[in-house]
């Protein structure tokens, strides 16, 4: 097994374990930490795929902002103190659908003849920057508006109204 293969399996395992931790753990704080593991492992996978910038963004935003925010909210809502989380009756249906999807998807992926392109060693990061500001300038500007809306919405809903 080559180095790249070993890394892929290790990181893949970490990601899946983290994911299982998020959905199966009874203590929600443990779930948050499992999420962190999963997200960092995904960043590693991006590095394997020669997407270094994306790996950086993943660690910074997901690991650095989102997980921290999640932990804060868990603390503020005292979720760590009631670790017994009994889950709801929708579980069997969700389980069946998930497993079914996984089976169908995996089989289909191997049956498909993908149009593989000749991949260079790694594409220069400036290509990504250039395309974001040229080809994808409209989504880029709209994304800034999306963040503004999320910000406004969060402040409005989370603020205490003077009673």
């Amino acid at each position: 097994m080559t180095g790249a293969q070993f890394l892929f399996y290790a990181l893949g395992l970490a990601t899946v374990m983290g994911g299982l931790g998020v959905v199966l753990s009874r203590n929600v704080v443990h779930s948050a930490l499992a999420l962190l593991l999963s997200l960092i492992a995904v960043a590693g996978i991006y590095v394997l795929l020669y997407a270094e910038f994306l790996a950086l963004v993943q660690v910074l935003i997901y690991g650095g902002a989102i997980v921290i925010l999640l932990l804060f909210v868990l603390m503020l809502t005292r979720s760590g103190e009631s670790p017994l989380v009994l889950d709801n009756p929708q579980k069997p249906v969700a389980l069946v659908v998930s497993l079914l999807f996984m089976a169908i998807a995996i089989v289909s992926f191997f049956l498909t003849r993908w149009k593989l392109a000749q991949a260079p060693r790694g594409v220069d990061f400036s290509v990504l920057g250039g395309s974001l500001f040229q080809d994808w300038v409209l989504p880029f500007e709209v994304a800034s508006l999306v963040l503004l809306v999320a910000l406004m919405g969060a402040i409005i809903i989370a603020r205490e109204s003077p009673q």
Partner: protein
Amino acid sequence: MSVQLEHYLVLGAILFAIGFYGALSRRNAVAILMSIEIMFNAVNVTFVALSRYVTPTLLTGQVFAIFVITVAAGEAALGLAIIIGIYRSRATVHVDEMDLLKG
């Protein structure tokens, strides 16, 4: 390539299935949000892998992934703010206890 495209896609599919299961079966609203983040990550792994193997010079998948991360961050922030709002008035974060609307 020692690791083929299909392997990454399978990883993405597994993660997506795990996240989907979590989103539908967990009780704690924050845990549901976390499962949704897993789903978004699964999508992103799929995008980035496809970017590398199918459109390596255009990086389309990576661009898409960047936007997904952006939106996911915004949604998480808004969702958590709403959860705080609910906690403040009803002291719960469990979705089955949120039954004021006859759902």
